């Protein structure tokens, strides 16, 4: 239990819309151990970003919200803590890397001053000391000429460099947990690999745990120790990365894995999961994935499957997981 850094229990997020409340995340449970990298995978709109924003306490109030459940971090339930407490851990023991480095840095300030700021919010630190540390951080994340770059504005840097700056900013206070929300989606492929390598390196030196939010199974394979697959606001499968790839137990995960393009072998039409993510306001009864599932039976239409533990650490929310596993054995 002590190795647990973050423990999310029954997290539920509702947004109020003109058509009534919409549940974007439905009783999600997961945990993150110290120093491990956990992947959170799913299609756009499945609630993975909202879950991470809820952990950071950053869901904006205007599309009025209701958050239920518990988020335990450093022996405190974040959902019960004051905004001031949340602010004091944000960027300090928990930080975030955003998807689009192009728009995530303030264009009116130098990158250096923005990294300094991350430290100054949480520590009493002299300006020149902050500057020294920022330059050191820029060097650590692989930016050449950090003394020069420190004084530059975001528009003078390339996308990859800006993402490195974002990472430097996230590392400024040695956080125990970094939430990386699709950190490589907006970058081109060669830069993607560099950024992933950098994150892997930094995890080893800084010992921070990382929640890697992505829809790219390739990124998962390369970086994560453990994976959680989200569909329509629920976690449908959770397993150590290797197990997930070898013994896929949920039809949705299977679909995701089959939709990865392969370079070797014959050219075949790329698989895609039929249909699209259901709208939150008319969620299908029973299993939420059944309208798109090739294994679906009448049972799936009527009753929501419980979460079963197939092996230690491998949990799945499906009535027919045995069939899914059996099929892979056969192929």
């Amino acid at each position, binding site marked *: 239990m002590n190795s647990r850094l973050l423990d999310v229990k029954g997290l539920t997020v509702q947004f109020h819309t003109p058509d009534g409340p919409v549940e974007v995340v439905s009783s999600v449970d997961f945990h993150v151990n110290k120093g491990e990298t956990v992947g959170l995978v799913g299609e756009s709109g499945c609630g993975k970003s909202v879950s991470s924003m809820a952990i*950071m306490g*950053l869901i904006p109030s*205007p599309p009025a919200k209701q958050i239920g459940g518990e988020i335990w971090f450093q022996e405190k339930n974040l959902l019960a803590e004051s905004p001031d407490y949340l*602010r*004091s*851990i*944000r*960027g*300090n023991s928990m*930080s*975030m890397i*955003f998807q*689009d480095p192009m*728009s*995530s*840095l*303030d*264009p*009116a*300030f*130098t990158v250096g001053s923005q990294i300094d*700021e*991350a430290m100054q*919010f*949480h520590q009493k630190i002299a300006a020149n000391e902050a500057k020294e540390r920022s330059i050191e951080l820029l060097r650590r994340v692989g930016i050449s000429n950090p003394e020069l770059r420190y004084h530059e*504005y975001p*528009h003078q840097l390339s996308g990859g460099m800006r993402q490195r700056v*974002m990472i430097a*900013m996230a590392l*400024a206070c040695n956080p125990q947990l970094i939430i990386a929300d699709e950190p490589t989606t907006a970058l081109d492929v060669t830069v993607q690999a560099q950024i992933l390598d950098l994150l892997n390196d930094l995890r080893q030196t800084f010992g921070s745990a990382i929640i890697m939010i992505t829809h790219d199974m390739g990124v998962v394979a390369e970086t994560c120790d453990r994976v959680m697959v989200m569909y329509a606001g629920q976690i449908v499968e959770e397993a150590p990365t290797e197990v997930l790839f070898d013994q896929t137990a949920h039809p949705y995960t299977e679909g995701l894995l089959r939709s990865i393009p392969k370079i070797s072998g014959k050219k075949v039409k790329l698989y895609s999961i039929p249909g699209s993510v259901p709208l939150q306001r008319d969620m299908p009864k029973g299993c939420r994935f059944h309208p798109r599932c090739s294994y679906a039976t009448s049972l799936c239409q009527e009753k929501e499957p419980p979460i079963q533990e197939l092996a230690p650490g491998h949990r799945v929310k499906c009535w027919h997981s045995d069939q899914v596993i059996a099929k892979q054995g056969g192929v």
Partner: protein
Amino acid sequence: MLSGDLGHSLVSDKEVLTLLWERLPATMALIMYALLISVVIAIPLGIISAVRHNTRWDYGAMLIALIGVSVPNFWAGLLLIMTFSLHLGWFPSTGYVDVTQNLWKHLEHLALPAFALGFLQAGIVTRMTRSSMLEVLKQDYICTIRAKGGTEKVVILKHALKNSMIPIITIIGINFGLLLGGTVVVETIFSIPGIGQLLVQSVFNRDYPVIQGVILCVAVIYVLISLVVDLLYAYFDPKIDYNEG
């Protein structure tokens, strides 16, 4: 005219340039105070209405802005004179005292006209501040600052405000012309010996050289203000750098 000789007034036989130099300080002081008043009212009001978007604060601020935009400044001027000079007797109703003579009297005389002039500008700037701030507050980098643990004060007053300034100073610059035009009316109502009043008098007297001189002077001021606005851009938006290219 190109040699700097604007000719002589047909009425008083004074040089036009001398007349302008005599009158300019009053007008400049009036405009500067009006600008100051408008910014001091408008920017906080705009920020409040953006931050408390769609609440009573917002509606209140927008109502004030609407009144500011709608009330013509000659009427605002008359109302101010009636209330604060005639009824309450707090401020003198007309006249002008130069700064060099008595600073307090100087401010006292210009307070009402500057307010009458600044209120209209304030209405416009409030609305621009509000919409510009709302736009900026939606940006990703605002979320980044919150994710770093920045307080709302830092988010709004340091980051959001600086990023919203470009449209705000643009609108202030453009409306400077409105302010200059407003001085004609306001100086007449409050009997301030500025170039606005000079213009009105010379029009009545068909004093063409003076009219010409005033118009030229106003145009020059407008161009200079535009230049200042352009230079301010470089401070607020680092993408604009006049040293390159």
